């Protein structure tokens, strides 16, 4: 009988041992906010007893690895970072675990999620991925350079104004480029920007019967505006600049304006930035057609069906996308550095409003992006800067290469558009959309 406590003790120790031995593998993109999450994750392990195995990869490599894994049911990952392009497509294939436990947890407060984000990550009202941060796009500009050019940035500029300002701000002798825009090929790089931009010119990827529209004047206007702007006021080597490269350029004071993700705001006014006190914010430009060139994206955490640790994985997602996580980051790094764009409560928080001068523009941008009606004319697809069909990533990768070549001066805008039209028609025919 004396042995019982020992046995119980040993058993419970063993149980604790196995519980803490549970390890989940998490794959995320190597952006600053995710690296911060990785640094904070020991707190999660301490609280839950679940060990975390991090896979932090550059975006393209990560996408390739998780797509291969989930499509072959490989089971290497328990938590994957995906976006609103993948979430609905993968959920429809039955590859993702519905986040019911999360939705049912009052502490998680699902109704606090911004409707745009929740909608983009849900299928038929069921949440399949929980947003870690959310973004639209907006204009960043240098107040000092704008003043020097004798111009005033309106809250909601037009492309015409942007063009004028960019050329006026350009000062090649002092290494200042009027505007920095994405040029690096990729469906999530230059095509995200150009597709969003094309919406404001009234262009669309496909008409109602899925015929590509690159032979239409709206796309020509988009590409011509983009190319001439970049030729007159863009940085050298623009065709290899993506989000990260442009952010670096802006932080170093080499860009007068930059139109990109709203999530960059905190880094531009942070201590890594040499121009922190001169950054202004404005809505993405339009051409008066009723649509602005701003997109909608979120990096969200999802649990693949192949995961052997779905419960622990949901626990982690709850930890990482909860209000409490935002407060933890705020306490450690200040309110300006919390992951933005996911929760209504954040934008109602006076402390955040005070610390984040970009909060209002960000929220307005997010709320004005409409994935159901991305552009002026009707479209058969959902998504602002993408079309949520499985084939889009491959198709837009090719088109992105062509537009990047046009930017590099390797081919003319007309050639790029013609080849884009041909290659997209070819792929859409193969996939069976065009009969």
């Amino acid at each position, binding site marked *: 009988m004396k042995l019982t406590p020992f046995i119980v003790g040993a058993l419970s120790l063993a149980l604790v041992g196995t519980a803490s031995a549970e390890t989940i593998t998490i794959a995320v993109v190597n952006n600053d906010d995710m690296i911060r999450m990785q640094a904070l994750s020991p707190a999660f392990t301490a609280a839950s007893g679940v060990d975390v195995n991090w896979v932090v990869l550059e975006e393209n490599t990560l996408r390739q690895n998780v797509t291969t894994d989930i499509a072959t049911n490989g089971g290497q990952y328990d938590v994957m970072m995906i976006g609103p392009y993948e979430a609905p497509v993968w959920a429809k294939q039955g590859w993702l675990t519905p986040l019911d436990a999360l939705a049912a947890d009052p502490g998680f407060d699902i109704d606090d999620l911004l409707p745009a984000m929740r909608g983009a990550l849900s299928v038929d009202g069921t949440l399949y991925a929980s947003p870690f941060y959310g973004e639209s796009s907006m204009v960043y500009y240098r107040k000092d350079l704008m003043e020097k050019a004798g111009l005033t940035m309106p809250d909601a500029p037009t492309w015409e104004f942007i063009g004028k300002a960019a050329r006026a701000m350009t000062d090649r002798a002092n290494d200042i480029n009027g505007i920095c825009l994405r040029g690096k090929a990729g469906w999530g790089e230059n095509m995200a920007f150009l597709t969003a931009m094309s919406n404001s010119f009234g262009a669309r990827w496909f008409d109602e019967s899925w015929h590509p529209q690159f032979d239409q004047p709206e796309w020509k206007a988009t590409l011509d505006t983009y190319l001439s702007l970049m030729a007159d006021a863009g940085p050298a080597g623009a065709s290899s600049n993506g989000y990260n490269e442009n952010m670096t350029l802006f932080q170093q004071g080499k860009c007068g304006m930059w139109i990109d993700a709203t999530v960059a705001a905190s880094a531009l006014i942070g201590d890594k930035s040499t121009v922190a006190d001169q950054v202004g914010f404005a809505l993405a430009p339009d051409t008066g057609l009723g649509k602005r060139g701003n997109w909608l994206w979120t990096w969200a955490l999802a649990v693949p069906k192949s995961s052997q640790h779905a419960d622990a994985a949901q626990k982690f997602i709850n930890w990482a996308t909860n209000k409490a996580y935002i407060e933890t980051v705020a306490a450690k790094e200040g309110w300006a550095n919390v992951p933005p764009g996911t929760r209504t409560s954040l934008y109602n928080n006076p402390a955040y409003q005070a610390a984040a001068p970009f909060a209002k523009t960000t929220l307005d941008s997010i709320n004005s992006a409409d994935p159901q009606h991305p552009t002026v004319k009707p479209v058969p697809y959902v998504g602002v800067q993408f079309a949520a069909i499985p084939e889009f990533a491959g198709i837009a990768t090719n088109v992105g290469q062509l537009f990047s070549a046009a930017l590099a001066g390797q081919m003319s805008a007309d050639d790029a558009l013609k080849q884009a039209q041909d290659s997209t028609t070819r792929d859409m025919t*193969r996939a069976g959309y065009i009969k």
Partner: protein
Amino acid sequence: MATAQTRNLARTMMAPAVVLLFIWMIVPLVMTLWFSFQNYSLINPMMTGFAGLANYTYVISDPSFVQALINTLILVLGVLIITVIGGTFIALLLDQPIWGQGILRILVISPFFVMPPVAALIWKNGFMHADYGLISHLMRFVGLKPIDWFAQYPLLSVIIIVAWQWLPFATLILLTALQSLSEEQREAAEMDGANAVNRFWYIIMPHMSRAVTIVILIQTIFLLGIFAEIRVTTGGGPGFASTNIAFLVFRTGILSNDIGAGSAGGVVAVIIANIVAFFLMRAVGKNLDA
């Protein structure tokens, strides 16, 4: 000398290697062949069934297919020319009596130890970056406008990076061959009054021909599959200016998640590799007996 017993023993000793390599070759090859005749998209499980030759016509009619073929050829030949000529030159130089030969050899051999993604990243960010790359700094220093390497000369940039990685290998093999040229042969040539150029053409070159063939064979095997360097630096672009066959297969199969077409591309790549191999093996095979 080969009795029946030793022959059997020899077979037994070879068996594990042969069997393993056979499995390694045949299993993926058969699966790839099978997939290449199927409708198989990773992200669209609705696409199933026999595809006939559709995947092959799709790949071969790819607008960048011909360019990828040409790029592959330019890439392989470009790197081979640079490494063989450069390697011969450096080997001749290192074979001279010079001070600090040990350290020199270490410096020259070093690029061979750098893994391809690191090599590509070093060149991309540290050297060839249009803004803060060392080459750009140097060009500005002498009053020139910096070159945007990966936009203006994408294929050449990749060739430079790959050639840098393989130059040490070529140099080492050629140097070893050079040093095996006996002292008597050289001295005899010198006493015959042959000048340096004649010595090079009539004594050294014939002696090195075998080493050159070896360099070409081994490098070609690796160069046909160049991939990491392209992916890290140019992503095959701008346009398709630096897309080779390996990258085309990657783009069709993996980036577009179209395993059927990707497999067809893989089969095409194997066929091309075998055509190259056929000619190479004949050339080298002759030399192996000599």
